[in-house]
């Protein structure tokens, strides 16, 4: 174990996987200078065949990822801000997500798309989306959202070695956060939720960037005598529904925290699963804490109001406990 930053963990995974398999290539806008930090040092080590700046043409980059993977490469496509996924969406939605089915299983597409998502940096609406619900709904894509340096490294390695298109979504502006990362070569399996904090009164399911405020909320709740269990699904597709239900069966109460807009968010889906499959275990309504159905504003005071905060999460969780007392 060693303490490492989130961005450093991602960078290590890229270095290790590119060294491990010469068929791994990485391309995207401004990757040679590693403008997002995570690709640092790759160009010097692996050269321009394997690390390459592209023109700004997302519609082509996503399609090229499909073509290059069909032709035998393991493609890592860096899309910088996740909003740029929209610009490249045709090949994602109409090709990448569908070609395996449409070709009767002939297409195997080992593609990892890296993008930073979420708000909090006054980047305004076109650079702050958490647009993954659309990806999740497409069906043929894995979507992983590591919240810690250890999971970032382990999930990225699993993504690169895997044979399915996978979106690896980094929480924006969180690259400096530190955590313990296991030494040596290790991977984190997809579809395994993890309990980040144990508790018996209420389950807080927190996606990606929301783990931090959820853990902070659990601290606030403890001061009120409420023991919150915080669960991190880690991967959204595939999702460890059983792992989430296990916690809900223990606590009987659940709050789902998601930085996506509320309507048709991943929180909405998880809430539906909990209400459906977990109904008999529930002692209170399933609650969602999400971004309201607005675009992310630029003004820091307004942006803070929109992104789920530890206060908002703690308040919703505490109300669930009060509804029990009433």
């Amino acid at each position, binding site marked *: 174990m060693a303490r490492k930053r989130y961005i450093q963990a991602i960078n290590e995974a890229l270095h290790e996987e590119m060294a491990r398999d010469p068929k791994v*290539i990485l391309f995207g806008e401004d990757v040679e200078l590693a403008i997002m930090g995570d690709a640092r040092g790759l160009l010097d080590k692996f050269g321009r*065949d*394997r690390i390459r700046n*592209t*023109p700004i*043409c997302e*519609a*082509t*980059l*996503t*399609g*090229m*990822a*499909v*073509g*290059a*993977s*069909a*032709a*035998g*490469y393991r*493609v890592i496509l860096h899309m910088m801000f996740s909003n740029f996924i929209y610009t490249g969406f*045709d*090949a994602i939605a*109409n*090709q990448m997500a569908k*070609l*395996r*089915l*449409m*070709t*009767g*299983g*002939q*297409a*195997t597409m080992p593609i990892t798309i890296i993008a930073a998502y979420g708000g909090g940096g006054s980047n305004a609406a076109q650079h702050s989306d958490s647009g993954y619900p659309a990806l999740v709904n497409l*069906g*043929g894509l*894995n979507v992983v959202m590591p919240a810690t340096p250890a999971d970032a490294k382990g999930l990225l390695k699993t993504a690169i070695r*895997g*044979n*399915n298109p996978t979106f690896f979504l980094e929480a924006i502006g969180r690259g400096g956060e530190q955590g313990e990362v296991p030494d040596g070569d290790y991977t984190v399996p997809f579809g395994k939720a993890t309990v980040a904090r144990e508790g018996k009164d209420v389950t807080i399911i927190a996606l990606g960037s929301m783990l931090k405020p959820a853990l902070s909320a659990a601290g606030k709740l403890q001061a009120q005598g409420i023991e919150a269990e915080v669960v991190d699904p880690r991967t959204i597709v*595939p999702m460890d529904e059983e792992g989430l239900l296990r916690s809900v069966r223990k606590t009987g109460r659940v709050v789902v925290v998601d930085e996506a807009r509320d309507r048709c968010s991943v929180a909405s889906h998880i809430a539906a699963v909990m209400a459906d499959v977990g109904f008999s275990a529930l002692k209170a309504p399933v609650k969602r804490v999400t971004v309201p159905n607005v675009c992310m504003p630029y003004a820091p005071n307004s942006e803070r109001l929109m992104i789920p905060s530890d206060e908002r999460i703690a308040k919703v969780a505490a109300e669930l406990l009060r509804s029990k007392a009433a």
Partner: protein
Amino acid sequence: MASLKFAPDAGQALALYERMLLIRRMEERLRADNAAGKLPGAVHLYIGQEAIAAAVCAQLAPTDWITSTHRGHGHFLAKGGDPAAMMAEIWAKKTGICKGMGGSMHVADFSKGILGANGIVGGGFAIATGAAFAAKLDKGKRIAAAFFGDGASNQGVFMECLNVSSLWKLPLVFVCEHNKFSEFTPAAQCTSGEIVDRARAFRIPTFVVDGNDAFAVWDAAAQAVAHARSGEGPAFIEAHTYRIQGHLEAEALMLGGGKYREQSEIDTWIAKDPVERLKATLLADGRANAQQVQAIADRVAAQVEAAVKFAEESEPADPELPFDLMFVERKA
């Protein structure tokens, strides 16, 4: 003809004719079976454009990649795809080349370099560019060819792929089949300037040919493919042709009496039929005799019959298969 730089020898010319005739007869059979209500989905037929797929693919190696369009049966067959497996796919059978999961607009055979017909107009450009990028990284002699229509040339991704492929000197041949229509809209209403000029703007070598002249396409394709294979970057072919059939069979229902072209226009192009034209040339210049031509016709007819019989007699697709095909090694 004497001015051609590359021309097929007698054997190649006969093989070219046979491939074109196979495409034609397969399409005609699909037209009939569609009209008879035997096919579950729409078909977009390639009748009138056969010379382009056949003459271009004749220059390609089995390991080269192609991407195709929603009008993709011709490219599939020209690149060596199995007629019976294609027919079974269109009939939505388990034995279809895509196990009945893709249908007419998505026939693909990766083992033969056919990265698929594509239901998205312009959907093949970037896939072909990515395959060409992979070929370049492999440092081999493999190339990719992207077939597309004049309609697709108005998609923004076309410009992006011209830029990237020229910038990176990718082994890629763009094959624009200018069939004069974007679905139900004549080219004059949606395409500004000459499409070939768009490629010229990126310093890509270009060839403009009569797409109904199989030998002219052969010559241009041989040069374009040689250029791409040399490592000097992409090449571009604009082949002028005409879509004899509608955008899709049964379009009359969609048009509801509306009209986007005149029968007289269609007739002038039927008179320029590339299949008949090649046959006439072969017979006239002595590369083929009537017996050989008849033998080809008989062989093709038998192949089409066998393909339809195979499709008809095959089991329906497995309706549960989608659960297995969304992800590798995992159920959806």
